[in-house]
């Protein structure tokens, strides 16, 4: 299959979408995660149940929502409920994936979306958790979608807004988080990373076509583990690109951010 030209954000979103299996449930954050989930629903996972924290459940998304609480999030949905309903559904263990973004991410998959610098005298204040901490605590597998650079991927985040593996193996369980949960995949514009089964450290699993390992390492603020069998991430298909551009994000809110 011939593949059209595509940009890095398009590559990132198409790759992320493929991780969503059909017939599963996913709680999505605002922006790129939302675009990826919509793409998945239209291409590879027609029975994907998308959960929005404000109350929307399983819409047939007509366009990408601008807010995870706007009316598109329950357009022809199965249910238009509330925050308590969607969050408790995650608490009970009914939600397979959390699909999130983040300003800083560290080697244990901890996410910072609160502050850079000292908490009381921040260099930069970000929005805070929103529902991200809740999703990262309750959903079975957390996936993070983020543009790859040194300021974002750091050895240790300035502030743990949402839990990854915290300080390493066993730390989530010791803190009291539900057993069997944690970060699963990090999907960037350069690579896909998982976590080492023992050390729980971030591990490069697949590098996007046209990207070198060196690019990944230069854009990562710590030394990630490199899987013994690093793969090449296949590029977006024509169908994926067409749907992404024409149906998911025709306004180029997300894919236009280069």
């Amino acid at each position: 299959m011939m593949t059209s030209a595509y940009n890095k954000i398009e590559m990132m979103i198409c790759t992320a979408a493929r991780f969503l299996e059909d017939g599963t449930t996913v709680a999505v954050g605002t922006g790129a995660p939302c675009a990826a989930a919509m793409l998945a629903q239209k291409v590879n996972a027609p029975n994907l149940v998308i959960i929005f924290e404000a109350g929307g459940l399983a819409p047939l998304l007509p366009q990408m929502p601008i807010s995870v609480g706007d009316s598109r999030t329950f357009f022809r949905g199965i249910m238009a409920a509330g925050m308590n309903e969607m969050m408790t559904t995650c608490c009970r263990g009914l939600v397979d994936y959390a699909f999130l973004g983040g300003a800083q991410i560290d080697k244990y998959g901890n996410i910072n979306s609160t502050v850079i610098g000292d908490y009381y005298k921040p260099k930069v204040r970000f929005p805070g958790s929103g529902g991200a901490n809740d999703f990262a605590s309750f959903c079975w597998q957390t996936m993070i979608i983020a543009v790859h650079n040194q300021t974002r991927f750091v050895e240790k985040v300035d502030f743990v807004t949402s839990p990854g593996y915290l300080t390493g193996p066993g730390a989530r369980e010791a803190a009291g988080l539900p057993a069997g949960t944690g970060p699963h995949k990090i999907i960037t514009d350069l690579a896909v990373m998982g976590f080492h089964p023992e050390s729980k450290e971030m591990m490069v699993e697949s590098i996007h076509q046209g990207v070198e390992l060196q690019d990944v390492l230069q854009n990562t603020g710590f030394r990630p583990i490199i899987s013994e069998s690093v793969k090449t991430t296949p590029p977006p298909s024509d169908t994926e690109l067409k749907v992404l551009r024409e149906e998911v994000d025709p306004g180029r809110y997300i894919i236009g951010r280069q």
Partner: protein
Amino acid sequence: MNIIEEGQAPLFMNPDPDKAREFFRKKPRAMTDKRMTEKEAVDMFIPDGCYLAIGGFGANRIPTAILHEILRARRRNLGFLGHTSTHDFQLLCAGNCLKKVDVAYIIGLEARGLSPNARRVMESGEVEVCEWTNYALCVRLRAAAEGVSFGIARSMLGTDTLKMSGAKVIECPFTGKRFVALPAVWPDVAVIHVHESDIYGNCHIRGISVADLELARAAKRVIITAERLVDGYAIRINPTRTVIPFYLVDAVIEVPFGSYPGNMAYEYFSDEQHLAQWLKVEKDTDEFQRFLDKYIYNVSSFEEYLELCGGIKKLKELRKLEALVDR
């Protein structure tokens, strides 16, 4: 009660349910006509220093008319509770109304970007912050709605969000497992925009209710703005639809297009141009001040604001953009 760990932020509100019960004991239960103007409602129920919570979700189903009135009334030192608060928070920052905030999501406007002014305000250190998550705030309101002093969840465990919150980690008396105890919060006043209300405050909401059902029950006072007033019979003919009953409500104001520039499901979509203009003018403080004067301070009513923003023509466009309008 053994406390394993606790957040270091102060609690802004007393979680004692008996204090709240004493208030609710005296709250009138009769079905009376509660209509008034935005100005009357703000004068009566939103004094300087009170603790406020806003319904909806950021720029969806928000009570813009009351927010503008709060700015015009130059309210100061307000407390605030916001799960995902976006344009509402941006407005209160624009008016320098805030003193202490219980928040989960501030400064941002989701996919639209971040508010330069709200960011300035929050980075200034002049507003006290207590961190929570969306669900944690929902549980806090839910606990208040249940008349108890705390609720439990597994949010925030292991994180700095917990450290900068007012939560405490306890052990379950049955399983020994850890849970986060979240203190109940009874806001002094909540303002909620709904689709329909009768003059007594019995309300219908179409689509998602976000955390507003919990909020209406937790707040000591409730101000309702409604797209349209309906006859009491419209309530009694289908009581399954009532989501906020009259005895929770203190003021009812009919405000068509009341969530503008936000989205109102089944009615009109958000005005993305106007919201983008906010983000743009906020970059320059002088320009921002002129913008605020033009759109809020020198405006005498919400209708006048709607006219300034494009009037009926604009509203018809937004109605067309709303996916859920019945066609």
